[in-house]
């Protein structure tokens, strides 16, 4: 379902204060759009006008071109999933009953509700058997957030509104929840409107980003375009001085590694001497060493090999190394490389087979391209 805001306005105090000032935009179907801006920018007000928790004072909101005035407020809300920062789980209800609230309001048959609750718990990675009959007081913060997300999906709504749903949680668990949520959205493909004040969260989750300030839209574009081409200084400052680094979070290793590298198969090259010859022939100062089925063992350098007797086993001269997987993002790659002091890092699949290498220089060049668009 597509949602269109048409000259949407919310005035307070007889028009003295405009929380949302004449904004028009379209939230694309099946996309996750992030509303972001400083506190008081109107992002939450905009969100809450969509399910009429706040009534607008001007303009219109259209669901697939049908005005929300033509829909009953209560029925409208039952068709829209809603998740909030402090979750608001009903403490007197079990996990099951919490998730079942909207399906019960919609008078679904109990068996269908039960199947749905189990399905949703699996979707948010909680074992239904184990958690269905627990109460909120028996859950960890992260588990509560997951139940909050599951509850917002309960009646299979086309549209989901999320108001900083991962805001009240520690950074480590927040990252995990965000990762899990990206996977969920891959599966369900709902129209999601997501409010946050965390730019990293916005870049990580958003297909598109709406940047708001003082009740106005400052920029609305695909996430990559917002990062690459900030509209003005306000957007730049929101992105922060490290936006080049943030840009790296959107790109994955699999699109940026190279297959042009030198490797030595330890199955064939057994001694230091043959390895040295091979390196000299290739005019390289180091090479990766792989074993059976191309599994990465480490690397060797000419410097180190020259100190050894040429009849020594090559395996004993191999230096172990960090590696990274293709689905990691470039930010993770850069951290791995800086921590391990590597100028290039081998890329391996989940079976540890060497696929290629990613160069620190490549990362610096990519960052440079973000920097350039900043000027």
């Amino acid at each position, binding site marked *: 379902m597509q949602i269109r805001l048409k000259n949407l306005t919310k005035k307070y105090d007889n028009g003295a204060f405009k929380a949302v000032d004449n904004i028009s935009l379209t939230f694309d179907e099946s996309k996750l759009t992030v509303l972001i801006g400083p506190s008081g920018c109107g992002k939450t007000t905009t969100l809450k006008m969509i399910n009429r928790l706040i009534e607008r004072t001007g303009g219109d909101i259209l669901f697939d071109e049908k005005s929300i005035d033509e829909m009953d407020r209560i029925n409208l809300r039952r*068709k829209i999933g809603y998740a909030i920062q402090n979750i*608001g*789980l*009903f403490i007197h209800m079990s996990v099951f009953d919490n998730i079942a609230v909207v399906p019960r309001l919609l008078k679904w048959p109990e068996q269908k509700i039960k199947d749905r609750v189990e399905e949703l718990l699996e979707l948010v990675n909680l074992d239904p058997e184990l958690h269905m009959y627990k109460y909120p*007081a028996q859950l960890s913060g992260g588990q509560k957030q997951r139940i909050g997300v599951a509850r917002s999906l309960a009646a299979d709504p086309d549209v989901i509104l999320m108001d900083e749903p991962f805001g009240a949680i520690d950074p480590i668990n927040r990252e995990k929840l965000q990762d899990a949520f990206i996977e969920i959205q891959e599966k369900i493909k709902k129209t999601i409107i997501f409010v946050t004040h965390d730019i990293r969260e916005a870049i990580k989750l958003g297909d598109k980003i709406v940047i708001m300030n003082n009740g106005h839209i400052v920029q609305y574009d695909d996430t990559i375009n917002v990062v690459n081409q900030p509209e003005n200084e306000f957007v730049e400052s929101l992105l922060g001085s490290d936006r080049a680094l943030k840009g790296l979070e959107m790109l994955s290793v699999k699109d940026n590694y190279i297959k042009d590298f030198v490797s030595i198969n330890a199955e064939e090259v057994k001694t230091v001497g043959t390895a040295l010859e091979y390196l000299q022939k290739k005019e390289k100062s180091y090479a990766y060493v792989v074993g059976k089925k191309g599994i990465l063992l480490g690397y060797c350098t000419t410097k180190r090999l020259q100190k050894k007797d040429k009849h020594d086993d090559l395996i004993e001269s191999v230096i172990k190394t960090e590696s990274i997987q293709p689905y990691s993002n470039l930010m993770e790659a850069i951290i791995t490389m800086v921590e391990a002091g590597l100028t290039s890092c081998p890329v391996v699949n989940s079976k540890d087979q060497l696929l290629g290498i990613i160069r620190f220089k490549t990362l610096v060049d990519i960052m440079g391209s973000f920097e350039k668009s900043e000027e």
Partner: protein
Amino acid sequence: MELFSYFFENIPYILEKTWQHFYLFLISWSIAVVTGVFIGIISTRPGKEKIGRTVLAVTGATQAVPSTAVIALVFIFMGIGALPAMFALFIYSLVPVTFNTASGLMNVSPDMKEAAMGMGMTKNQILFKVELPTSIPAIASGIRTAAVINIGTAAIAAIIGAGGLGEIIFIGLRLMDVSRIFAGALPVAVLALVVDALLALLEKAIMSDGLKLSKEN
């Protein structure tokens, strides 16, 4: 035993007075519970926050008025007998029930209410499915306090001719008859303890396990 002599010699009379006492309590307290919960609910509906705060302030302050003062005031306006006594007891029990209901409902987490509204519950559904069930501990404690206070105050109401166990106590006081005082006071205490225990059981039965767990945390 000297102390129990009057008690054992007058069991039928004491039972009659106990029944009378219980009757005074039950009628005035029941009406107070219904009225108090009702006032507590209507004064805390959305948009009536001001009324809610006023109710809390008034009931909070009147809890400090001594029971004898209430009885004396009622006597001035309504005279003597069981009816004025029950009215005084009603007023006196109304205060904790109203106070606790209003404060319980006002303290329901705004997050739960926002979630409930956002999910499409009607105002009544929010009240009956969310607000009241989560306020049970507060409301129940108000109701129990009201019961205990009521039973105690009913003994004093004997001075305006209400009957009940207070009658035995006051005669005993006048005659300086310790055994008689004891025969009146003991059933009052037992009655209060039994009623409170029964209400505690009832509270436990209707309160969700989820609430018990979240109170423990």
